[in-house]
């Protein structure tokens, strides 16, 4: 099984290496190679999943192996693979969606000038994501975490000729980095305390009470910062809607199903680490995210943006599930959401492919033109809205139940459930708004409508496969048994370490019943409202939009988050950069130039001294000699008699001197 896992990991990497090196020269530009590699990986993952399911033991570790990676001093850092039930499910989800997206992309990306590079990036992403779910230590998860971020950046900016696409790529990368700083700090806290990166080692250390409550909460919240960035939670959610600039299959794979769920997976994987306070923090962030994104999705007109905000909202749901102690609920929603959200994105891609527009105002009436897309899209919409008995119903209901149970056990925390329930209604509303505007009614643009056609089989086949998985693959109890909430007790926890709420008592039972009934009610009323407004057109959306103009503007401008960040952080950073640039230019350059100028000045003075004083002295000596010579030369008259006369006088003088 370890061999299988390694092969699953290496197949996409091999595909990436081959594609990036000589993809262009392969027949069909190598799409069959990448797609084939992913399908082989899918079948291997399927075999692992079948093993996991047939064993049917809670949180069973099916296989694990570690290798020494490097060591410094007495610290040995290992790199290992662990396959438990959660990993098996994640492997299956990632390989399935990745393989289907590969298949779909053959149709969608047909004729793109960088066709083989696109598949290379997909391979790199699949490798990174699979590595992320397979590794058994914090350092490894951080490495793959950054790798998925990199491939996400590459794919968002895939059409980098467009400024908006390259900017979106940068925005996604930088925003993610902000969260990653927190995650790195958390990993450093854990490593400096326990001296190991291994999940098991760290959890055992936590179970033994190696970290004080405050530090544990800090580590948990900081670790969650990574998830805030990667899973687009409030307040770092701003990058995900912009990430829709990437090709639509990429949005389905990375920005809906897998990478953005990595944050949820990471929180789930390290679940036992979180203190009660840290979990409450997660739940609050999740609640804010879910509600905020759902409300924004109501007014957006771009089909992919609606889905993007829906994704943010659903990720918020998963976080609430985890934060309120519904470990299984959160991870189950991850799995089900991956299926139907990937389906929704691929379906929207199919629509965009047909009408060559992302604006829902350009669509309408496409139901008859694109039956397969329509029906699969409808199934996914029903699943996302939480209509029984589709998969989304079970997972969302479980999260709502978990939130309600949390509210019943902690006084004053009922608001989480209320807001989440409201968001569920909003979710149903905006999804059916999307369906009605796209597939029902009169065609808004006759020319585009006439041009529209059903997509080729490579694109519709993935839709149909995903539709099957969206309908209802998992029953709640079965999933809960396989992936049940881990507890610190498994790591030999002392009694003092608190358990994370929840359980199978009457409270839980009541909560489940209430949550189930209320979630069905709000989902149906959301659908009913959407039908009234957008199908029967009994209520005019325009009228209400203008009546609630300030609210509409607030939502249309996405609560002004981008503007807020532009005004504060971005302009602040720019201001700081400009200040530093000016400092550099004026002060540092000034000092350097000053030193230069000072040296030049000193040299000048020294040169002058040399020229005037030293040379002057030398010249003076010369001039004195020349002057003396000029004066003395007159003595040499050339007249022999005058010489003689002088000699005579000299003799007389000598004579006189001798006399005295």
């Amino acid at each position, binding site marked *: 099984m370890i061999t299988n896992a390694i092969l699953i990991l290496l197949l996409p990497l091999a595909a990436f290496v081959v594609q990036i090196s000589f993809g262009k020269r392969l027949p069909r530009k190598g799409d069959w190679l990448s797609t084939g590699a992913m399908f082989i990986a899918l079948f291997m993952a399927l075999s692992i999943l079948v093993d996991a399911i047939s064993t049917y033991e809670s949180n069973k570790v099916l296989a694990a192996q570690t290798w020494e990676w490097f060591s410094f001093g007495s610290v040995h850092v290992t790199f290992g693979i662990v396959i438990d039930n959660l990993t098996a499910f994640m492997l299956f989800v990632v390989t399935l969606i990745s393989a289907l997206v590969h298949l779909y992309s053959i149709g969608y990306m047909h004729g793109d000038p960088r066709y083989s590079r696109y598949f290379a990036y997909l391979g790199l992403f699949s490798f990174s994501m699979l590595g992320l779910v397979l590794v058994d230590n914090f350092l490894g998860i951080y490495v793959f975490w950054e790798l998925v971020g990199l491939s996400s950046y590459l794919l968002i900016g895939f059409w980098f000729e467009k400024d908006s696409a390259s900017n979106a790529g940068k925005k996604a990368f930088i925003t993610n980095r902000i969260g990653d700083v927190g995650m790195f700090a958390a990993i450093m806290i854990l490593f400096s305390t326990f001296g190991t990166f291994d999940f098991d080692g760290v959890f055992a250390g936590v179970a033994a009470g190696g970290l004080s409550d405050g530090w544990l909460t800090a580590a948990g919240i900081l670790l969650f910062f990574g998830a805030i960035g990667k899973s687009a939670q409030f307040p770092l959610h701003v990058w995900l809607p912009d990430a829709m600039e990437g090709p639509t299959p990429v949005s389905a794979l990375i920005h809906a199903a897998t990478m953005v769920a990595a944050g949820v997976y990471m929180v789930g994987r390290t679940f036992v680490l979180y203190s009660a306070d840290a979990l409450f923090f997660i739940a609050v962030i999740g609640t804010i995210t879910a509600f905020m994104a759902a409300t924004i999705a109501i007014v957006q007109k771009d089909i992919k943006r609606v889905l993007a905000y829906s994704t943010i909202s659903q990720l918020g749901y998963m976080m609430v599930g985890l934060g309120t102690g519904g470990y299984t609920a959160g991870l189950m929603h991850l799995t089900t959401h991956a299926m139907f959200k990937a389906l929704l994105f691929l379906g929207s891609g199919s629509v965009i492919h047909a009408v060559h527009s992302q604006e829902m105002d350009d669509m309408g009436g496409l139901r008859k033109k694109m039956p397969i897309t329509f029906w699969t899209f409808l199934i996914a919409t029903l699943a996302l809205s939480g209509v029984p008995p589709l998969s989304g119903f079970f997972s969302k209901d479980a999260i709502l139940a978990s939130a309600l149970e949390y509210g019943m056990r902690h006084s004053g925390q009922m608001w989480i459930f209320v807001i989440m329930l409201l968001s569920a209604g909003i979710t149903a509303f905006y999804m059916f708004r999307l369906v009605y505007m796209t597939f029902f009614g009169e065609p808004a643009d006759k020319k585009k409508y006439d041009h529209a056609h059903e997509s080729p089989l490579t694109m519709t086949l993935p839709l149909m496969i995903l539709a099957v998985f969206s309908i209802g693959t998992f029953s709640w109890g079965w999933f809960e048994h396989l992936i049940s909430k881990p507890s610190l007790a498994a790591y030999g926890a002392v009694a003092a370490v608190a358990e994370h709420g929840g359980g199978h008592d009457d409270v839980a039972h009541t909560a489940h019943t209430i949550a189930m009934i209320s979630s069905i009610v709000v989902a149906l009323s959301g659908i009913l409202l959407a039908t009234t407004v957008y199908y029967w057109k009994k209520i005019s959306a325009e009228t209400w939009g203008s009546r609630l103009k300030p609210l509409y503007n607030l939502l249309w401008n996405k609560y002004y988050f981008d503007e807020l960040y532009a005004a504060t952080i971005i302009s602040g950073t720019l201001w700081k950069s400009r200040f530093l640039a000016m400092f550099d230019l004026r002060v540092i350059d000034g000092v350097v130039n000053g030193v230069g100028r000072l040296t030049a000045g000193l040299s000048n003075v020294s040169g002058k001294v040399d020229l005037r004083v030293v040379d002057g002295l030398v010249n003076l000596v010369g001039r004195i000699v020349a002057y003396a010579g000029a004066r003395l*030369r007159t003595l*040499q*008259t*050339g*007249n022999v*008699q005058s010489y*003689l*006369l002088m000699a*005579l006088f000299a003799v007389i003088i000598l004579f006189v001197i001798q006399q005295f």
Partner: protein
Amino acid sequence: MEVGLNHYLALAAILFSLGLFAVVTKKNAVTVLMGVELILNAANINFVAFARFIDTDLDGQIIAVFVIVTAAAAAAVALAIVLNLYERLKSINLDEADSLAG
């Protein structure tokens, strides 16, 4: 009156002064040479006088003979120089022979 050493010395001094005067003042190179002869002969008178009155052997008189011979040789050389000077300047005026002037 007895002619003594002092008379000879006075004569020699007068003769030397006349010769020096001629050497220093005359423009004509030949006249200057004649002055030089006077100076030499003044010296000769001194030699002979001292040889007669102070030292009675013949040393001073022999030197006087040498001086006469040397003076003849010097005069010959000097006259040759004067001839060359004339060849060059077409004159034997010593004031014109100042090509060594600084």
